[in-house]
């Protein structure tokens, strides 16, 4: 199966740790949210400093590691939330 192309965004402390806010990823398909996180942690120079199981959003909604990915999805790696 073709690779799944997704945009991955990082925020706040995770953007500082990774040194990047926006990354294009090509994940071997079929792919899940968890596959993309694992790839991101391997590809980024400081990726290993990100947690293995962070909060993740897919297309602007909270997601689970097993959720499937589709071409064009927007993933976001979310540091511990602090709203309110």
């Amino acid at each position: 199966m073709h690779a799944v192309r997704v945009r991955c965004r990082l925020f706040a402390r995770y953007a500082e740790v990774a040194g990047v806010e926006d990354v294009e990823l090509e994940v071997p398909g079929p792919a899940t949210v968890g596959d993309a996180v694992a790839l991101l942690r391997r590809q980024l120079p400081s990726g290993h400093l990100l947690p293995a199981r962070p909060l993740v959003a897919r297309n602007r909604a909270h997601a689970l590691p097993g959720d499937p990915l589709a071409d064009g999805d927007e993933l976001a790696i979310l540091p511990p939330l602090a709203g309110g």
Partner: protein
Amino acid sequence: MSYIVQDPIDLGRLAARVAAPDRGAISTFLGTVRAGPDDGPVVRIEYSAYESMLEDEFARIVAETEERWPGVAVAAVHRLGAVPLGEASIGIAVGAARRVAALDACRHVIEEAKRRLPVWKREVLADGSARWRDNAGGREPAAPPPGRGPVA
């Protein structure tokens, strides 16, 4: 209507948005920037967000609340950018026919907002230093919660 503001929150305006002749109760909530006894000399908090998701997630919380308490109307905003000590970072107004629904629904909105909104805060101290802070009380470096994240 956007759920994001950059300027001070006008609670009266939020309350006016949920007022109606058949609503006899308006419950409001303001969350303000504080410096607790263990927090050190915090002078302001800088809020940032995944703004497009914040809009979507806040809309989902409001829709769920209005579905769970029929007849209730919710108006809410989160402030982003630098918020000085004592000023509000979030404002919520809930209008309902009677007080119990207004109070319960308002509590629900703030609890879900704290649990689900993709917002981060950086405390700036009197000496100019800054640190990330999360809702679990964690300070930099804060570990994320284990396992699964919140699901809408």
